[in-house]
């Protein structure tokens, strides 16, 4: 990792607590909403003039009901599939307007926010294009693993075996039959300067990665785990605990790839160095109603399959990280 790429930014819990919220309270997200917590944390990493753009989705809808807004910084929503194209336009406009002296000559960070639908599925074309063009922006995927805003439909980010309204667990089909698309790896394959995964339980890691994504010159991609109690049929009080379990079971490992060089982040490094600490995925799955059907004799084989794929992906990741 190049030292020049990132500042030595250090912060304490007190710094974060005292920093005014840029994603403010009063939004209409549900109790226990993972994405809302994630956004609040992300905005703690903002370092200066910043413009945020949001794909259509829960967070856009919950935060911008006219004439109210939860955004204390300039914010733009235009459509579902184009958060990265919005960022392209904003970044380019700032660049040329600075050059022409139309606005103050200072750097402006651009953050694009999208859910799993707006990233894995309908948004991937605009995202891939914007990254290929090298725009200087941070794309944050808040992944609640289905189209929650429209009522829990499966996306390319929905995990294997999850029951959603368009991949329902029936009497013969055990929920979604396909594993989650490895979106962050796909972004690494773009040879972009910074890609990372994060989880809100590890808030310090998350905030640091957001700051790194902003500091890096060029496109950055951050994949953030974001539990949805409504869609996951989980206890709203347990969203943060789930964010921890996902990392401890290695179903959502934390890593970063700087200029394509993979490196495990501290919480996942613990699992790599002390494999006995790695928990079975069952512990993560059994507390969520969307996987309830897997705990029946008819479908229990799917549990083994989920464990197998989790382990396979974890081993691959370890290899990429040189471990």
């Amino acid at each position, binding site marked *: 990792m190049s030292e020049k790429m990132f500042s030595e930014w250090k912060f304490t819990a007190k710094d974060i607590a005292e920093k005014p919220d840029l994603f403010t309270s009063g939004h209409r997200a549900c109790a226990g909403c993972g994405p809302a917590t994630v956004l609040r944390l992300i905005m703690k990493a903002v370092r200066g003039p910043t413009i945020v753009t949001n794909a259509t989705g829960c967070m856009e809808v919950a935060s911008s009901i*006219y004439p109210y*807004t939860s955004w204390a910084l*300039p914010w733009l929503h235009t459509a579902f599939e184009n958060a990265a194209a919005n960022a392209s336009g904003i970044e*380019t*406009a700032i660049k*040329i307007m600075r050059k022409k002296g139309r606005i103050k000559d200072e750097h402006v960070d651009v953050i694009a926010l999208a859910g799993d639908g707006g990233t894995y599925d309908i948004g991937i074309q605009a995202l891939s294009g914007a990254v290929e*063009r090298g725009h200087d922006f941070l794309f944050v995927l808040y992944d609640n693993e289905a189209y929650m805003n429209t009522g829990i439909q499966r996306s390319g980010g929905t995990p294997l075996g999850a029951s959603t309204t368009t991949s329902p667990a029936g009497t013969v089909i055990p929920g979604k039959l396909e594993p989650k698309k490895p979106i962050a790896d796909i972004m690494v394959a773009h040879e972009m300067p910074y890609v990372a995964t994060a989880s809100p339980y590890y808030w310090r890691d998350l905030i640091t990665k957001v700051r790194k994504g902003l500091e890096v010159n060029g496109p950055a991609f951050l994949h953030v785990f974001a539990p949805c109690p409504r869609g996951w049929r989980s206890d709203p009080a347990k969203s943060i605990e789930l964010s921890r379990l996902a990392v401890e079971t290695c179903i959502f490992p934390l890593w970063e790839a700087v200029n394509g060089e993979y490196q495990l982040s501290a919480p996942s490094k613990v699992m790599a160095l002390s494999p006995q600490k790695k928990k079975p995925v069952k512990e993560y799955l059994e507390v969520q109603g969307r996987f309830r059907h897997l705990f029946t004799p008819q479908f229990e084989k799917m549990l083994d399959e989920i464990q197998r794929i989790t382990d396979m992906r974890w081993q691959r990741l370890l290899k990429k990280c040189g471990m």
Partner: protein
Amino acid sequence: MNAKMKGNVKQEVLALNGDEAVAYAAKQSDVDIVAAYPITPQTIIVERFSEYVANGEVETEFVCTESEHSALTACLAASVTGARAFTASASAGLALMHEMLFVTSGCRAPVVMAIANRALSAPLNIHGDHSDTMAQRDSGWIQIYVENAQEAYDSVIQAFRIAENPEVLLPAIVGLDGFTLSHTLENVGVLPDDAVKKFVGTRQFPLITNHKGKKVPFRLDPENPTTMGPIALPNYYFEFKRQQEEAMKNALSVIRQVHDEYAQLSGRRYGDGLLEPYHMDDAEFATVCLGSTAGTVKAVVDELRAEGVKAGLLRMRTFRPLPVEGIVEALKNVKAVAVMDRSMSFGSHGGPVFHEVRHALYDLGKRPYVVNYVYGLGGRDTSPTQIRGIYEDLQKIIKTKSVEKLVNYVGLRE
């Protein structure tokens, strides 16, 4: 040409095709960002513009996006950030932008877009007709259709002033017929760079009240945060749409003003900027049409006039907003009108221009006969003989006091 060139500034005559004329106008209009995606017959516009960028002839960022959807999105986002944005497209490209056309007008982003009008698939066809822009007539964009490359040049420059006027703040399309105009070389009088730059000026931002009750410029500005493109529920959405309609109404007079002001500079006029009547003062038989076909119709009108037939043409330069008053004024004393449509509105008994012209005339005490001629789809040529045939039909209608066919197809095998 000389008569048309008596402006206030010295002009140069260049040999340009329609696409090149558009690119040249955009080059002179102090555009901040061009985001675009190639599609025939528009591609020359972005190719020429890329050359201007590559040669350092413009202070513009060129973003070559991965789709038209992202091209318009980037223009929209840049525009609400405060930049002057331009793009170009056609046919399938415009269709792919469909969703973002409504978002752009709804966000009140004054993006200017040139469309080299082309047929829509299927079957695939790259040639000229108006299916692409007519399909977008309800998307909240101003639509100007030009007759030749000169007007394409003049209209793009005017479009920035119209779109960015605080009383309007709507995106604008300048449509030029694919191939007939986009790829055909003409002599085009161009204004000096500084004259155009002065004419278009820099963007002015109206003040809006933000969520803190503070008056701030209407753009994304880190010092004055605003929330753009929010969700509006049934309690507010309707008012937003009503405001867009009001802006369209305002555009009617702004288009005329900008056209007048530009005419002072260039010496070139296209009617009042909304409608261009040709021999309409005492016309008994008139056609209404858009785009390059008007040139052919004018030649036929000249012939008919020489023969003593009181023929006229009403060229609709601005289709959105629809200049209803001007249409009524121009056609109220005519006996029979043929409205020419270069697109179809399947299942609706006639083309869109026909519907709207006929609708405009409904309140007249004494209405002329109004019939429809669909022509030139997929680039099919429309000859002077065929247009003469239309005027003959109109004369027959008056003679027999009856309409044989309300909707007619020109030069079609049936």
